[in-house]
Every structure is written in C-alpha cells, then in structure tokens.
C-alpha cells in the first residue's frame, strides 16, 4: 500500500508543476496588473513603475517564476499584494471555511442519499421509487446559486430566521457560527443529494439482480440483511467514486455559492484575487486546490478495498 501511495504522490508532482506553470503564465497574460489596479485612474508612469518594482514585477516572467518556486519549496508562499497578509495562513483560514461547508454537506448528502437510493432500488418501479427518482432528478437540475438565492430570500430576508451575510468562526462562537453555516450547507446538501441518490439507486439495482443476492435470499436472510450486508458493499463503489469526484470539483466551483452567502471561503478568494491580480494569493490558491484534488482522489482510491475486497491496490 505504501508503494501505491508513494507512486501516486510521485505522479502528482509533475502535474502540480505543470499547473503552476499554466497558472503563472495565464494570470500574467491577462491585461492589467496589480499596480495599475491599485492606482486606478490616478496612475502616472512614475508611480506605476515604482509600485511595480516594489511588487517584484519588473523581472522577466521566467525569473519571477523561479523566484516563486524557490520560495514555495522552502515553505514560503509569499505575501498578498492587496492586503500584505502572509498567503499560507490566509489560505488555510479560508480553506477551513470552504472545507467545513463542503465536507458537512457532502457527508450529509451521502448519509441521506445512500439509504434513500437503496430503498428506491429495493422498491424499484413502485410509485415511491418513481417519486424518489423524479425528486432526485429535479434537485439535480436546480442551479446551486439559484437555490441558494431562493433559500436566502425565504429564510434570511422574508422570515429573518437566519443571518444573510458574514461569518463567525467556530472558535469564537460555536452556536452563532452554526447559524451562518446552515443555509449554505443545506443548499449544497440538497444539490448534491440528487446525484448521489440516483447513483446509489442505479448501482444497487445492478447488484440486486445478481446471482449471489438471490443466493443470500434463498439462504433465508432477511431483506434488511441482504440489502445491508451484501448489496450495499458492492453498490457503494461507484457511489464512492462519484462522491470523490464531487469533492474534488466542489472546491473549485464553490466560488459562486460563497458569493451568494458572502462567506470568506477559498473559492471567493480565488475569484477576488483574479480580479485584483493578486498573483501570490492566486498561485497559492491553485497549488492548494490542486493538492486537495490529488489527495481526494488518492483517498477515494485507497478506501475502495473497504467496500469491495476484490479490488487490490
């Protein structure tokens, strides 16, 4: 197993490097640089040159890249151009917000969706099954930010039950922190529930048709035991892949949800840093997101044998 992990991590390094080059180049090709954005319409040539030089932008792109790589390898991700904060602590802080929401939502969605999917598969083609499938497909089709807006309007503005903006860290005030997280988590859970439920149902249906299930039933096992001990184990694998895919992609795509709910997460940080041309922060974000993506994929693959003993790493 260790060899497997090492091999995968090893393969990830060239990907990381490649992405870092792509990001570095891409952001610098976008017209407008941080100095210009900071000085706005009052920028005269001299002030611009002065500011660019202080930001280290007067070197060639290649030189800038090498300087950056060197500092990354020594653990220093640099400082934000906009706020002069250190990038690494900033990233970790923002990431904890996004991660909380994503993990809780996906966990909740999985915990609810898998039993629901199992149940629907068991009662395949009944009215209940059709209803559940219809519901899941409907939820699947609603854009997350629209749902978020509607929920915000209903519960935040019209009913006033939950706050509509801001964020309180868990450390400061756990109870209040939860109220800020309820709406985004609920939105995300609803949105991901559909896909996971459908996948769980479909893969369970596939498994339920197989011989060994009939065999287990013939042995006299109760339906519950059949479902739980035999069907779930094998049906879970594709669902698990889906969960992994969702997790990996959500971190990049959560920016829109964070905008709707004004959460200080890593998605919005990334988008804001593009608009502000905050190169160090953006580069740091990219590294982080890519690392997470690789790690998530790795974890997903590592946990497979738990569900399907036939799979060897």
């Amino acid at each position, binding site marked *: 197993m260790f060899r497997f992990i090492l091999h995968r991590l090893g393969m990830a390094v060239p990907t990381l490097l490649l992405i870092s080059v792509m990001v570095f180049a891409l952001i610098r090709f*976008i017209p407008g640089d941080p100095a210009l954005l900071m000085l706005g319409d009052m920028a005269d040539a001299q002030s611009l040159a002065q500011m660019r030089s202080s930001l280290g932008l007067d070197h060639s792109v290649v030189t800038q890249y090498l300087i950056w790589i060197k500092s990354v390898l020594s653990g220093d991700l640099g400082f934000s151009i906009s706020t002069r904060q250190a990038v690494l602590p900033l990233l970790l802080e923002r990431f904890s917000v996004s991660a909380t929401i994503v993990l809780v939502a996906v966990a909740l969605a999985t915990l609810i969706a898998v039993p629901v999917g199992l149940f629907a598969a068991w009662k395949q083609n009944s009215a209940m099954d059709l209803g559940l499938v219809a519901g899941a497909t409907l939820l699947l089709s609603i854009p997350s930010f629209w749902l978020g807006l509607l929920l915000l309007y209903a519960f935040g503005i019209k009913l006033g039950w939950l706050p509509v903006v801001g964020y309180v860290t868990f450390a400061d005030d756990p109870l209040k922190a939860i109220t800020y997280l309820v709406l985004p988590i609920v939105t995300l859970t609803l949105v991901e529930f559909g896909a996971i439920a459908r996948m769980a149902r479909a893969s369970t249906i596939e498994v339920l048709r197989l011989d060994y299930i009939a065999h287990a039933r013939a042995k006299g096992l109760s339906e519950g035991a059949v479902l739980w001990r035999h069907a779930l184990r094998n049906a879970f694998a594709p669902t698990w892949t889906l969960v992994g895919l969702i997790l990996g992609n959500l971190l990049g795509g959560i920016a829109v949800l964070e905008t709707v709910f004004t959460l200080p997460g890593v998605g919005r940080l990334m988008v804001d840093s593009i608009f502000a041309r905050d190169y160090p922060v953006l580069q740091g974000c990219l590294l982080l997101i890519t690392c997470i993506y690789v790690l998530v994929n790795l974890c997903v693959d590592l946990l497979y044998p738990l569900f399907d003993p036939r799979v060897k790493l």
Partner: protein
Amino acid sequence: MHHYVKKALYFGVPTLSLCLAALTLQAGEPSLIKVGFNGDIRSTEPGVNRDENSDAFIMHIVEGLVAYREDASVGPMLAKDVTISDDGLTYTFTLREGVKFQNGKPLTAEDVKWTWQHYLDPKTQWRCLPEFDGRGVSKILDISVPEPLKVVFRIDKPNGVLLATMSRPDCGGSGIVHPDSVAADGTWIAPIGTGPFTLGQWKQGQYVELNRFKDYTPRAEAKPDGFTGNKQAFVDRVRFVVIPDAASAKAALLSGGVDVLPDVTAMDEAELKNVPGMQVRTSPVMTLGGLLFQTRDPLLGDVRIRRAVALSLDYSQMVATLSNGLSTVNNSIIPTTSAYYDATAHTGYPYDLDEARRLLKAAGYHGQPIKLIVNKRYPQMFDMGVLSQAMLQAVGVNIVLETLEWGAQLERYQSGNFQMMAFSYSPRFDAALSYESVTGNKDKEPRKVWDNPKALVLLREAQSESVAPKRQALFDQLHTLMLADVPMVMIYNGTSIGVVKAGIEGYRSWPISKPRLWGVSLAATSK
C-alpha cells in the same frame, strides 16, 4: 429595633440604589455601530498601500494640518491658522494648543516635521510624494520649526492647490502621526494619530474596528465640518464589516447585520427609502462619469463626429435613469458641488439630432462600427454604455459594446488604446485637480484625453494661482474650450447615497463622500 431599621433604611437605600446604578452602568454594553465596507482595508498607514476604504478608515484615526470642510473648501484642522507669504512660497502653520496624540503625548511642531519627512522619504512610498517633490506643481524645499508650535514650509513655485493636495484623503489627509508609529528599523507598526478614534481589532477579510479615543481634543467649533470642525465621537466602537457584494450588503442592512451602508446604488435607494426603519442620506459627490473619446483615433479624430455624439444624447433622461433621479446633468469637468461651478460651467450640449445628423454627413460617417468599452464591475459605467448605444442608434451611429474586465479596461485607459470608453473618475476636490486628471500631453501620458496645448497653458496657470476670482476666470475659459473640442462628454456627478437604520443619529453624506462616524450616536432605544 425601630431605631436600627430606620438607620439601615437611611443609609441602606441610597447605597443600594447607588450600587444598583453602578451595576446597570457596568452592565451596559459599549455602544457599537456596524458599517458595511465593500472591501477590506489594505493597511493602516496613511497614504501608503491604500485604496478608498483604507482612506475612509484612516481619516478616523489621523488628522492633518488642514482638511476639507463640508463644502469641500479647505480649512485648518490641527493648525490654528495658516498664513501664506505674498510671493506664495512660504506657508506658516500655527498649531493648536493642547492637542494630544493617542499615546498621551502632546502634539508639537517637531512631530509635524518628523511626519512630513517620513512622508517625503521615497522609502515610505507615500502616494502623494509626486505632488510635493517637484514632479507636480511645486516642490517642498524645506520644513522648519521656528517655535514649538509653528511649522514653516518653503516651496519653490507658487502653488494654488498645495493645501487642497495636503487635505486629500488618498494622502491620508497628510495625517500627523507620532514617531512611535514606526519601529526603529523603519517598518510601520500602527497609527498613533490625534483623531477621535484609535485602531481596534482587525480581523483581516472580515472586519476592522475603531475604538473611541477617550482623551480626544476636539476643535472649538460646535459641530463637525467635513474632516475638520468638532469631531468628538459619541459611540464607543465602530466596526467596518467587509461585504464585497452589493446585494449581500443590502440584505445585511435589512436583516440587521449592519447599521450603516455608506454607498448604495440608486436602484437600491428607491427600494430602501420605502422600508420602515431606514433613513436615506444623500449628497452629490465629485466623481465624474462620462464617455471618453480617443482623439487620436482615425475615425474619432474628426471633431464633427465627436460633437455629433455629444449632441445626440438625451442627458436628462440618461442621468435620471442612471442616478434614479438623484443627480443632475453636468457637461463640465467641474463638479456641481464645487465653489467654482458657476453659470459658465452650467452650459452644456443641446439635444439636437438634426444638427448631429448634419455633422455626421459632413464628416462622411456612413455607419462604421465604433467600439465602446464598458465593464460589469461598475454598474453605472455599464448602464451608461448601454443607454448611449441605444440613444446613438437614433442618428445612425453604430456603437458596438465591448465588455472588458475592469483590470483590462484600466490597462486600455492607461495606454490610450480605445475608441470610446464609459468611465468614471475618482473624485478630485479642487477644480484644477479635476482638469488635471483629463488634460495632458498624450505622448507622455497616453491616458489623458485632452491634448490641447492651449488648455495645458490655462491649466498650469490655474494650478499656480491662489486668488479665487482669477481662478474662476481660468476655469470658465477651460470649460468653453472643452465644449468646443469635445475630447470627452461629461455626463454627471455621482451621488453618495448612505442608508442608516432608525436610531442612528448624526450620520450625513457629503460631497467628499467618505463615511464619518464621529458625531454619530445610537439612540437609547436601539441596541
């Protein structure tokens, strides 16, 4: 028995009530006002690594020698008075007595000199250094301290905008700070100013706070007057909450997450003024919004085409839509709230479609597309472009909208690489500074839209001249010249629309547009 009971009551009741009173006073929470900011501040150093929110913030902590009054004229702040020599080269500032820094130390002329030398040091990277080191109108030759409370500045050329430039919020108001604000090795620690608030907690990306400076020494006036006057603070704590998204900010105001929003859009104002418990405070400000032309463009180089565009826009309808009825039309670079906005500045372009068509025909325009750059980040610019396109269709001008991201548009503005652009200038608080932002030599500064040598001469004169009527005459000439040249079409000045919750008293919007939380209090009934 009775005797003791009587004695107990006699002493007990007042003592008990005093205790209760003391307890309630202690139990009373320090008052807090929450203000919505559309971005985090950049740093706490006045005029260094700053943006608009940082400027608004720092002006609560530091004060300069002079500052802008409510009507955008310049008045003394830390100075008791200012005398200018006859040749205009020596400025003598007499400081007020008894002013204390936030670390308890008294304000002296030496501190003023130290601060200014810190600002003028290139290593500090003070934003306004170019205005005072010779690259601008004049250069500060030296700063001397003849008496403990007198500071003398000597400059090399007469400068009519020196005091106005010193007062600029983006220079941090040239706020005087105590030398302990800076560490021994020159790095910035925290601002120790003389203002009504001190720096509180800063949770980066979320909020930044101000605490009331209990030993603040206010000026003698009865009320605040812009950035000067009596700036006594009435609230214990102010929290600037970072809400970058305008729609979320509005939602926060409605649900109690913030108490004050200093700057909402005209559309939001229309909705919020009808909400019970909300008060709207508006004021015209000095931002300039209009359409820029590139006079060196092969097509737009013909003044007839530019003039035709200027004549084809229904300004009153456009401004009514863009500002929801809160602004008025202004075809002059001089903002309507400026003291120099006179009858001449009030003249503009008539709405004359026939004349426009005649001009286009004479210029030989036959429908070639003209690209107008807009961006989505600033809705006013975007809407201005959409409206202009629609209106210009009536005379057959084919406008193609090009939506760029703001950073990209700034780059094109900076390099002059555009045909037309919907743009908004950040406010300049003196008419000469307003003209300076659009006038210049395109070979050296491609971003300047107006390249007329005669205009440049007039501008230089206006910058050196200190006498008001003479300046007015110069501005009149500049405006008439600009109307003829049409290097750009100025459309309107913005409005600062602040919305506060009921219970907040004393908050006012003003032409300089920066929010001010001194003089503002929470009524007893609200939390």
